[in-house]
């Protein structure tokens, strides 16, 4: 599978939890080398959609394809997915080295933790100290290192800048651009419109579980522009 060419395609994806319809008939395409922002009010279905894209949640209806391959909880293609959530997805009692070696092993990759820590600007930290003693920003850097260990073609972010200080948020924006340049499909679920606006190549807005907006962005947006589109589409204040 060519990392540069395969698109991620959702076809009429829906998800129900009991009688609650979290997502209804969502069809969308996410392209490599683009940063796609998924926005929407609370309860719009953003996290459910991201969970489905990550193959952690099974859709009730519809399909997800990466290139020609159907993605699901047992599909080989899920090894191409990297995920960074608002929690780092790391073992707090283990050090950075142990976490990276563990996840490298699970993906069948022999990793050099030192090199990886340098890449995310963590070469100065004690790699044996428990990760829970790291600052929030350091944990997010390590989370990105963990997500990039296996060179994923699809990179998913769920509120990655939540609780990050301005320096951490700025670093994260730089990383998103780097991942776009590497030809990855980058999908960001966020409420931070100001941070994501200038980076966004493609905008998806969900409203009450349905796709309210799904279109490329042709000019560089400001936070004000994005807020206007968001308010017009959802009717919600930001």
């Amino acid at each position, binding site marked *: 599978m060519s990392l540069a060419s395969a698109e991620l395609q959702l076809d009429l994806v829906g998800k129900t939890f009991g009688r609650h319809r979290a997502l209804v008939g969502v069809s969308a395409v996410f392209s490599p080398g683009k940063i796609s922002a998924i926005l929407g009010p609370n309860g719009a279905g953003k996290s459910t959609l991201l969970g489905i894209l*990550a*193959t*952690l*949640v*099974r859709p009730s209806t519809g399909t997800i394809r990466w290139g020609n391959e159907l993605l699901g*909880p*047992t*599909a*080989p293609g*899920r*090894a191409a*997915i990297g*995920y960074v*959530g608002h*929690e*780092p*997805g*790391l*073992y*707090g*009692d*283990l050090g950075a080295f*142990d976490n990276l070696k*563990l*996840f490298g*092993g*699970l*993906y*069948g990759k022999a990793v050099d933790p030192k090199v990886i820590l340098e890449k995310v600007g963590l070469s100065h930290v004690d790699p044996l100290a*428990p*990760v*829970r003693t790291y600052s929030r920003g350091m*944990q997010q850097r390590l989370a990105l290192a*963990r997500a990039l260990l296996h060179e994923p073609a699809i990179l998913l972010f769920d509120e990655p800048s939540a609780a990050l200080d301005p320096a951490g948020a700025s670093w994260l924006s730089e990383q998103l651009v780097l991942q776009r340049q590497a030809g990855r499909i980058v999908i960001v679920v966020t409420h931070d419109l100001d941070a994501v606006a200038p980076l966004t190549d493609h905008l998806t807005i969900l409203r009450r579980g349905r796709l309210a907006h799904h279109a490329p962005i042709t000019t560089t947006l400001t936070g004000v522009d994005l807020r206007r589109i968001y308010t017009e589409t959802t009717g919600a204040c930001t």
Partner: protein
Amino acid sequence: MLAPNGFVKTIFLVASKDLRIEWRNREITATMGFFSVLMVLIFAFAFVNPAGDGLKSEVTAGVLWVGLLFSGTIALARTFDRERDLEAIRALLLSPAPRAAIYLGKLLGVVFLMLLVQLAVTLLSGLFFSASIGQHAVWLALFLGLGTLGYAAVGTVVSGALIRSKSRDALIAALLFPLVTPLVMAGVRGTSMLLNPETPDMESIVFWTEFLVVVDAVFLILGLWAFEPVISGE
């Protein structure tokens, strides 16, 4: 590939991760060990006769199995707390590691910790209750080993299912104990017969051992089948 590094390697990666965490903070073994020693001491104060009369074998068997059940519950709850902290479970489930291998890895880690504590409880029980533990060490190890495996096999699924529940500690016991009733009954009966100071009824002991093997096999198969949907929250 879904399991690029091999099914067995994933099992050992997950188990060794749990044991490495435990080696670093010793939280589970300390809690289980403290609870188990306290339990043996309380039973010793309650049942041991200063006149030196021997205890009934049922009491020693009961102490061993109460220790197994309650210390096992502590291990099961804490080992999944560590998965929930910082949402490590999400990263683990996102990896291409087969869920069955993750289940077996978690199970292996819990079984190791439970057996470690069982060893201490058994030695203490032998000391305080003058039970004939040394005479039947192999059979006793078999009974407690099978009991531990079966209990952890169901417990890993139940604890995994409750990973996001706030009242998990209470619910684990409430859900788990009824499920393991056949296992406990067989284990206690068999152990009690084994520790009988008169001639143990070997025919019954073999029967209860075979019963435990069958129950373990059923629990393991059910665990392998049920772990994926429960851990995914489906």
